[in-house]
């Protein structure tokens, strides 16, 4: 699976440019740092040429540079960077590669999302839980997120609640949505439900995302009102993102080379759609019917929804356990845990 041809054409995307972006960000995440710190090389030349040196060029990896290389290794070892710097770089690179790969090949993009999610989770960001739940339907993480959210909203984790950014809080809710049945009244009553701060690629109010998470949580067989409201909320965010894409497409040079600053896929929206599709499958609810429910949207508005449905659907080519567990053990719902790609 990949983005359908008619959307490639409508979006005027250059496939080689997207492939190049996917490839570059994927490989950048795997890049080995140079064995020599540039700051060390500069420092060794601070007071001019080395004794016996000349103006010529030497290769530190060649025979002529052995002396200089040995001196650098002994006296100018690279200063340690903060450990999160490279970790954050890897997470961002793999996430960017995922956006490109989801357009080209769903299983590859899905694997990238899981890998990026693991990196973000290592930094204790709920965004990581959201990516893994959206990409792989990991129920263990979903239950863990629901526990954490419940603790936050009930005031049992005041300090963490204060530290958590609105953007991360909504990821926690989206990750928890499939298993947040116990949070019903708490979610509706919390002041978060009315926050207006804009978040996400489409810059929508926090309350819109909160509603989306709450509606996903409340999906039930036969409850058409919840379904209609969820569809409307998804469409509203998709329209806002589609408008961003239209602006970006007007800048043809950046767009055609894949260097636009607007993500072609709104991962938040695609992930939310994927989670809702999995919840529907698990609860035996009629699945999303794209032609009936989203076909009235314009092509730029459809992109993230199409990708989300692919991500949330059954994909026989992605059969391996992503091997991701919760960061914090769930206290009282251990028996409910199941690792799988649905919420069954």
């Amino acid at each position, binding site marked *: 699976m990949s983005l359908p041809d008619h959307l490639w054409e409508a979006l005027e995307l250059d496939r*080689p*440019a997207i*492939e*190049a972006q996917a*490839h*570059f960000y*994927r*490989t*950048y995440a*795997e*890049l*080995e740092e*140079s*064995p*020599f710190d*540039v700051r060390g*090389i*500069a420092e060794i*030349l*601070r*007071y*001019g*040429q*080395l004794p016996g*040196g*000349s*103006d*010529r*060029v*030497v*290769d*530190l*990896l*060649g025979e002529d*540079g052995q002396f*200089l290389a040995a001196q650098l290794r002994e006296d100018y070892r690279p200063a340690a960077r903060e450990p999160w710097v490279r970790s*954050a*770089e890897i997470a*961002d690179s793999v996430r960017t590669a995922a956006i490109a790969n989801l357009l080209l090949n769903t299983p590859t993009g899905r694997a990238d999302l899981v890998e990026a999610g693991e990196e973000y989770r290592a930094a204790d960001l709920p965004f990581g839980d959201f990516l893994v739940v959206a990409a792989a339907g990991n129920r263990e993480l979903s239950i863990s997120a629901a526990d954490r959210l419940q603790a936050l909203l009930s005031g049992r984790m005041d300090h963490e609640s204060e530290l958590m*950014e*609105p*953007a991360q809080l909504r990821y926690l809710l989206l990750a928890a949505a499939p298993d947040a049945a116990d949070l019903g009244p708490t979610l509706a009553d919390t002041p978060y439900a009315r926050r207006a*701060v*804009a*978040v*996400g*690629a*489409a*810059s929508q109010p926090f309350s819109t995302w909160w509603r989306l998470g709450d509606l996903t949580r409340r999906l039930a067989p036969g409850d058409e009102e919840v379904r209609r409201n969820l569809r409307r909320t998804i469409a509203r965010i998709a329209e806002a993102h589609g408008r*961003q894409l239209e602006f970006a497409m007007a*800048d043809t*040079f*950046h767009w055609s*080379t894949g*260097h*636009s*600053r607007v993500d072609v896929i709104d991962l938040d929206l695609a992930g939310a759609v994927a989670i809702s599709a999995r919840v529907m499958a698990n609860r035996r609810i009629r699945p999303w019917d794209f032609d009936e429910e989203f076909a009235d949207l314009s092509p730029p508005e459809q992109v993230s929804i199409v990708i989300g449905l692919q991500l949330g659907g059954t994909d026989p080519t992605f059969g391996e356990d992503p091997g991701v567990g919760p960061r914090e053990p769930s206290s009282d719902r251990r028996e409910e845990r199941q690792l799988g790609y649905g919420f069954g």
Partner: protein
Amino acid sequence: MIIQWCCKGLAKLDQDAVTEILTDPVGLICQDWLAHTQIGMPFPVGRAMQRLTEANLHRHVNDFSGPDPLTGLPFCDVSPFISLSAGCVDRVVRKKTNRTYRAVRTALDFATTDYADPARPRCPGWVLYCYVVVGSNPAVRIPTVAEEIRELNHGRAFSGWYWQGEVAAKLNVPSAQILCAERYEPLPGGRPRITSVLVNQGFCHPAALLAERRML
């Protein structure tokens, strides 16, 4: 005045060409200079200095492949500016997020992707490390200082390329300011591997330009 370290990505150059950049005193030259050199013509420095204008800097940053009003040629073939990257922090207001872009990432993208080929294949390339002097204020007409495009208080117009952390040098970056060059070669799987680290022993450390004096 600030000494700013930067990277430059160069795709598909052989080692001799990079060695020449590191050893020839003129160092890294702009496309206009390179074009003259390639046809054996002397580089008209005075005329090039007159082309150091706000409008041309805007073309260099935001309309690189558009036509040069003077010659009608693509501006990228006659630009008197040289794009370097110093990295940047990009504030994505709509996401309430700051993103950090490292200079070496931008340089590596240009070094290992053949953007001249419509298929955008991976290719071997070089990342150069150099320093330039940037001013406290924009000074496009002054050839000896580079323009800090990535500084929003200097380049105030919106640019879709802001995230590249550009610092635009003018006419040339002397080899005395170029410390070294790393060669990256894509492995069969695509991951770039460093195969050479050329050090310019004629490099002049910027300590001489800094506000620090040694004792007599």
